[in-house]
């Protein structure tokens, strides 16, 4: 662990700077690595699709990189015209959440339609069956 901490690097004004990792960074890195392993494991067991796997692995790799080098978000934020790196993260977070909610809404709508179809089928089947009796 000591070695990892010492080899932590960050980019500051184009120069690689070495320093100590904050506790939150260490926690996030461990969390990211564990989650990636977990996602890959359930993918191997065939419980999630390749698409979902790639999505989640990419997301956690991103978190891994950001934890390792928090200032990289400031660099990106400046490029995009947003003041601070944290703001960029929050904006991405909110937009991502909205997107997920919309996806969920459509999925629920779809499931509702399927339930309707089932209920209709059951109702008609039972009526025909009752008449045969």
């Amino acid at each position, binding site marked *: 662990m000591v070695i990892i901490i010492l080899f932590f690097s960050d980019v500051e004004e184009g120069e690689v700077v070495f320093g100590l990792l904050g506790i939150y960074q260490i926690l996030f890195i461990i969390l990211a690595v564990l989650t990636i392993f977990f996602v890959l494991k359930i993918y191997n067991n065939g419980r999630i699709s390749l698409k979902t796997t790639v999505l989640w692995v990419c997301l956690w790799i991103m978190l891994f990189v950001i934890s390792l080098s928090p200032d990289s978000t400031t660099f990106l934020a400046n490029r995009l015209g947003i003041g601070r790196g944290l703001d960029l993260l929050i904006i991405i977070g909110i937009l991502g959440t909205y997107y997920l909610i919309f996806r969920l809404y459509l999925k629920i709508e779809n499931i509702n*339609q399927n*339930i*309707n179809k089932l*209920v209709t089928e059951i*109702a*008609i089947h039972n*009526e025909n069956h009752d008449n045969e009796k």
Partner: protein
Amino acid sequence: MNKNIISSKNSDDAVEDTVGVFIVVPAFNEEKTVGSIVEELAKRGYKIVIVDDGSVDRTYEIVKGSKSKYPDNVFILHHPVNRGLGAALKTGMIFSLLKGADYVVTFDADGQHAFEDVKNVCLPLKLGNAQVVIGARPFEDMPTTKRFANNMMNFMTFFFYKIKVKDSQSGLRAFKSEVIPKLNILSRGYGVSSEFIKEIHKNHLELEEVTIKTIYTDETQNKGTNIFVGMKILFKMIIDVLK
């Protein structure tokens, strides 16, 4: 689009011809009214398709009793879970088609429609003047809040679907059976009324509006289009446009 308004008075002398007419009655917790409605319609010789939409009261037992009195005229479709007005109507309409209906009428189970209006809404279909008929309730008879909500719904229906109707939320409608497969109904709740109008417009169906009677009782006051239902339908319409 062919839209003529005829008064129910003009068709009062028409002979009540019930051959091929299937009346779909969606019912959700309507134990007080559903029995008399089903029996009254069955007595007139219509085929009744009652869709019990997962009622938790005695609706199902009551219509079972009605079926034993008129076994050839009454069909009971039971939704094991409540799926809403739109889904209930869809079930009833699909079943009517399977049974070889020529005309399908939708009729509310809360007792707000007059039985003789079934004949009136079927008439333009039989004469070949229209493919779809909507029974328009005169708004002057409505209580103020209902009138406001229904006016709002008419405006929203016009705003979103660009079609002007006298009563977009009426529960009494009549369809020629061949147009029913063209109607793509997805709404589950009260939004289905506006959706019918949208589908009529989209498929360029000939629509006629017939003025009908509305019976206002305490029962019918509590259901149907009020402001909250209106807001919900508005939200659905916006989502529909975005989809």
